[in-house]
């Protein structure tokens, strides 16, 4: 157990946590003593695998899987209620479930545009609204996983960047609106993170239009610290922001990108 931040007895919901960054966030919360709701939408089998891995760290009752599409408010609300029924309290929400499509601007369909807006922004908003009544009781926290592409454009997914830009303002508005309840709202901003795979994507970066200048990536690392991010890098950032040690921190954005945007 890592008790740098003691989360014993606390309960968190992490959306999109059947794999990737979300799973890393759950791992860090459970290592700190918390209980978690693991949320997945498309890949239930993979979430069950994640659950086994997490239970090996925190015991059989430290987590459970709930399948829900967060872009649907009713499903989001049902998940939050199920978590409360199971564990009796909710101390924090980590909004992480988001999609990326990887089409250039002039190839993007409006169906994909709408899907990204409804999942990446609508899903975050639905979960915030569904969780807020419980967070008022615990003076809990909300942490939104964004991306360096909320500040820096992508070239490979303009709509993803738009949703992340919107997310930055959602986080700031929520921070001042929920402050009266003692509910803090913050953001973690990763760059590239090494994960198993992403769903919903066409073949990432294989389109001939996404060409880097000659020798660009072979000559220089994208990351001053010399490696891609790992899910736990973002996980520990979330644990810190949700901890009592961060009680005066709200409306901020913690960039956990290995220094990527400095280059």
């Amino acid at each position, binding site marked *: 157990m890592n008790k740098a931040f003691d989360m014993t007895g606390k309960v968190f919901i992490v959306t999109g946590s059947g794999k990737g960054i979300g799973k890393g966030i759950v791992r860090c919360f459970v290592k700190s003593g918390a209980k978690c709701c693991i949320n997945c939408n498309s890949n239930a089998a993979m979430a069950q695998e994640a659950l086994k891995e997490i239970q090996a760290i925190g015991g059989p009752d430290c987590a459970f899987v709930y399948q829900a599409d967060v872009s649907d*408010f009713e499903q989001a609300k049902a998940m939050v209620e199920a978590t409360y029924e199971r564990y009796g309290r909710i101390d924090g929400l980590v909004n992480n479930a988001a999609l990326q499509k990887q089409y*250039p*601007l*002039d190839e*993007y369909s*409006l169906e994909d*545009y709408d899907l990204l*807006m409804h999942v990446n*922004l*609508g899903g975050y*908003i639905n979960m*915030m*609204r569904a969780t*807020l009544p419980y967070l008022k009781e615990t003076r809990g926290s909300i942490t939104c996983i964004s991306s360096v*592409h*909320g500040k*820096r*454009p*992508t*070239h490979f997914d*303009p*709509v993803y*960047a*738009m*949703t*992340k*830009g*919107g*997310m*930055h*303002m*959602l986080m*700031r*508005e*929520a*921070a*001042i*609106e*929920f*402050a*009266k309840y003692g509910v803090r709202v913050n953001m973690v901003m990763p760059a590239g993170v090494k994960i198993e795979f992403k769903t919903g994507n066409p073949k990432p970066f294989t389109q001939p239009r996404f060409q880097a200048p000659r020798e660009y990536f072979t000559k220089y690392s994208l990351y001053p610290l010399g490696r891609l991010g790992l899910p736990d890098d973002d996980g520990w950032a979330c644990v810190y922001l949700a901890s009592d040690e961060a009680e005066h921190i709200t*409306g901020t954005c913690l960039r956990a990108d290995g220094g990527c945007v400095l280059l």
Partner: protein
Amino acid sequence: MRFDGKTVYVTQADTEQGEALALRFAQEGANLVLGDASGDLVKKVEEKGARVLNVHPDLSTFEGAQALVDEVKAALGRIDVLIYNNNTVVRTGLENLSRDVFESQLNDNARTGFVLTRVVGDHMAEYHSGKIVYVSSIHADKPTGSAVMYSIAKGCINMLCKETAIFYGPAGIQANLIEVGAIKGDDEKFVSEFSPLYAMGYMEERIPRRKAGTNEEIAGVAAFLASEDANFVNGASLRADGGFELFYGFRAGKGEKVDE
């Protein structure tokens, strides 16, 4: 004049900001395409010597936007400048947010911009030149405390502008954004129970010159960004708020009159 022979498309021209933009570009020699303008405005712009096409496009689809571009091409020729001037404010917090407001605010202030950018961007790329100016808001950075979906949409447009700048840049197009702030009437629009930003009666106190901005001043900034003088400005956010956002609670500037 800077815009002689050029065609400038101003969206949501039926607003005070839209009117100021239309008149400014007309005064500098442009022909105007006006989105949903009133008959009065069309007349005023024509009196400045501009040719005017008043349009009512369906911006919910790429096809609708393409039909608009075709209509402009037939009437006035190519579009040289796109001014995305959509700024519809619906006051709502997150706790009382409705699905309808979520959809309508994102649609009015962001989705239409995405559709237009793509279609007009492709159109401008055929001529290897063009300027896109997003008349946005300081609320792409500073929360309102009163209109959450407006801020979110502005955050989206902020990134759209940067994506447009790098995507259409090789095709000779520049895209920039104006972070408009503290225009007369904004305090009524955005007054909030959470933020003193627009506390009634104090908005102008926050501005170093102690006077709200005007739509005409914003039109001047837009005209600069749309002109040849701004050829090397791309993907920039230009805050035009008189220094409103910098205020931190005191008035102690040079020449300040101290209250007795």
